[in-house]
Structure formats: structure tokens, C-alpha cells
């Protein structure tokens, strides 16, 4: 389980990036929390820096759109999905469920 930040640190419309070998982006989309692989599958760009609209994030470099619920790209230029992760809130802290086995997958 990876600690992202506190709930207070992630208001609606904001995102946070958890660094690591496979960085993860956590979003607050109008109150719903989502976590996906941070790296756009088109070309290397951090989705945590992307534009959030509804439950879609737009890659900040080339405007590929990803559905935060499924990780699927909904428009070109991206074609491959990003991974999705479960999010859990405990005592006001946001955690992402990403165990070693998942990381290796």
C-alpha cells in the first residue's frame, strides 16, 4: 500500500504523483478518487500534470484522453490503456493499493 497524501491535500480537480519505478497518478475527480499509471502510453508524459475533466484526464503533451475508471484511452494518439489501481482512504490519508506482485505484472 502506497501513501499518496492526505484527503485535505487533494481537493477536487487536483492530482498528485507517487514517484517510483512505475509512477502512479492519483486524481480527485469531483470528489471521486482514482489512481492510474502516471505515464501516458503514447509517449513519456506525466498524466498527473494533465487536464482533468469529469472522469477523464487529458495528457498534458499530446492531448490523449484516458478514462480514470478503466485506464482506457478514449482518443488518439494513445492506443494502450494505463493501469488502474484501487484507492483507499484511512484516517484522512489516501493510499493506493499496489503490492509488489502487481508492480511486477
Amino acid at each position, binding site marked *: 500500500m502506497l501513501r499518496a497524501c492526505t484527503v485535505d491535500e487533494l481537493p477536487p480537480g487536483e492530482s498528485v504523483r507517487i514517484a517510483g519505478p512505475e509512477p502512479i497518478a492519483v486524481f480527485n475527480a469531483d470528489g471521486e478518487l482514482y489512481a492510474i499509471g502516471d505515464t501516458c502510453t503514447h*509517449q513519456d*508524459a506525466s498524466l498527473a500534470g*494533465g487536464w482533468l475533466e469529469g472522469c477523464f484526464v*487529458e495528457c*498534458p*503533451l499530446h*492531448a490523449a484522453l484516458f478514462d480514470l475508471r478503466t485506464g482506457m484511452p478514449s*482518443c488518439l494518439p494513445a492506443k494502450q490503456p494505463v493501469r488502474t489501481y484501487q484507492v483507499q482512504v484511512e484516517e484522512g490519508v489516501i493510499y493506493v493499493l499496489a503490492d509488489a506482485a502487481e508492480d511486477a505484472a
Partner: protein
Amino acid sequence: MKTVAIVGASLAGARAAQELRAQGFDGRVVLIGEEPHLPYDRPPLSKAFLAGTAARESLDLLDADDLASLEVRLGTRAERLDPATGRLVLSDGELEADGVVLATGGRARALPGTEAVAGVHVLRTLDDALALREELVPGARVVIVGGGFIGAEVASTCQGLGLDVTVLEALPTPMARVLGPELGSICARLHGRNGVTLRCGASVAGLTAVSGRVTGVQLETGENLPADVVVAGIGMVPAVEWLDGSGLAIGNGVRTDSGLVTSLANVVAAGDVAAYGPAGIRHEHWTNATEQASVAVANLLAGQVVREYQPSGYVWSDQYSGTLQLAGHPAPDDEVRYAEGGPDDDSFLATYHRDGRTVAVFGLNNPRGFGRLRRQALRRPMPVG
């Protein structure tokens, strides 16, 4: 419409193929490419692919599903278009089509008289990148002619490979045509900060060579810069010569109306080759190619202009560890204001102003801030696709 021929297996051509299906065309689509390669993405050719860190497959623009819905003819040159019959004469035969998408792009401009000199390169195609990559060996001294985006990106990649790099720019400020003089000069400073020599106002008189291989670049001043590898990043020429006799209006590319339709309603153009609107404007950028394909296909299928092309003016460039992003259409005398950070910072946001309006937004190393500012300051661009 039964058959649509797409001439040019480029980004614009590949996107046009995808758009035809996405917009409901269920007839035959023939994608014709002069190169032997399936459509590939060009931006990495000057960066990760040139550095050897991106694989060929990562450049693929079409997946198996796309390809299954197309007829792809590679290694095939388009030689003539007969507007009366819609007949395309190809290097390997003829093709009847009732709709044509012209996406032939252009050819890289070479330094005059250097085609046969070993060690001298241009960079536009996959094969260009492979040939250049082979010569970027340890110890190679690289001179790049042209300080635009391609030149700067190649310089950055070569510097990353540990090579000795000099960039020659004929103008007083590189990238001023795209970014204006102020931001152009700020971005040009990235070279020096990363140990690359940038020489502005440098005109090339010729090359020196020994046994057919380049040894140096001769400047107008008489100075000779030793070089093992020379890369020309001096622009491109639209590939339109094959359209002579087609009846299509040609001038700085294929002329189209603002909906990318040529003088023939069943022939549209997209990408670098399309010179659209009354002024015949061409854009040579990735986003333009992909956005134009969508509009051109919509108008081709409708048989009339149902969508006009509204350029977002979005351009990006990765140089050294920096990302440059521009949206909108700046002019050289626009006023530049800094929305975040300043010209001496590693990361800043700036806006261009003309007649009381914000006409463009620029960001260095701040994609998130750029995205926000772009939406605040400019109309939200149409999503791609």
C-alpha cells in the same frame, strides 16, 4: 463513395484512414506510401529513436485492427492524378478512386550540392534517422545547420550521447519565426546551458570533404568548422510535383479552401502539404496533421464543407531536459507577458498579446500550468479524434 485513396502513409494519411472508419465510411480504403515502412510517428526520430532508446514498434501509428480495415500499398509512388476520372497513376499500376486524400507531406531540404557527400544528413524519414544514428559514434564532432525545432532536438540528442555539437543558425534568433524574438532567444539559451555551441548569423558557404566524406563546414566568413557529421535542419519542400497536370491549384503546397477541400470536391488535403484558406497557410506540425485529417475526411464524406479547419497552433518540442509548448499564433511584434516565473527561470509560462487580446500561450517545463493557462486564455481546442 466506394473507394477512397489516401496518398501518403504519413501521420496525416494514417489519421485519415482511421477517421474514415471512425466517421462511418465502410467502403474500400487504399493507403499508398512511397516508403517501404508502415506509417510511423516522426517526433521520436529526432529524440528517443535517434538516441536508440525507442524501438521501431513504438513508432507505429496503426494497429492490427486499423490495418485489417485497409489496403496498404507500400513502396509505391504516386505519379499522376487524373481529375476527370479520379484515376491515380502509381509506380506499380493504376487505381480508380472516387475520393482522394492528399497527405504527401514534403521532402527535407538538403544543403545544395551535398547529396553525394558521406556524413551529411537530413532528418525527416525513418531511414534518415537510421542513417544518422549509425554515425553518432563516440568522439564524432557534429555540426547542425539550422537552429529550428529539428536542429535543436538533434543537438539535444547528440549532446545526450556525449558528442561535441555546434548549431549554426542563419538568423539572429533561432525559432523566432515560430516563437517570436523574445521567447526564441530565451529557448536558444538552452543550448549554451547544456554545453552546445550556438552560432547565430552564421551562413554556410559550403562543406569541405576528403575522399567523398565531410570534414568540415565552411562559413561565409571563411572560417572552417571541423565536422565528422553534418545535419541540415533547414526546412522542407511540399511534395506536389507529381500533381502537375492534375488541374489542382498548387502554390506552397496543395491549395484548399478553409475546409481542406481542393478545387475538386472529391479531393482533400491534410498535413504538411495542405495550403488552406485564402492565404494558403501551411503548418508543419504534428498536431496540425492529426487535426486536419479529421476535418478533411468529414468534408470529403459530406461532399461539401461541413467543418472548417480551426488550427489550435499547438506545437511542442523536447530539448535537453526541457519541454517547450506553444498554442495559438504569435506574431513577431506581439507583447510577451510572464504569467508564472520569468525569462531566466528553468520553468515559466508566458502569454502573447496583440490589440488587447491574448493570441498565444507558451510554457517551458510546465505542462500542467500550460494546460490550465491555455484553457483560460484561448478557446479550448477540439479534442483530437
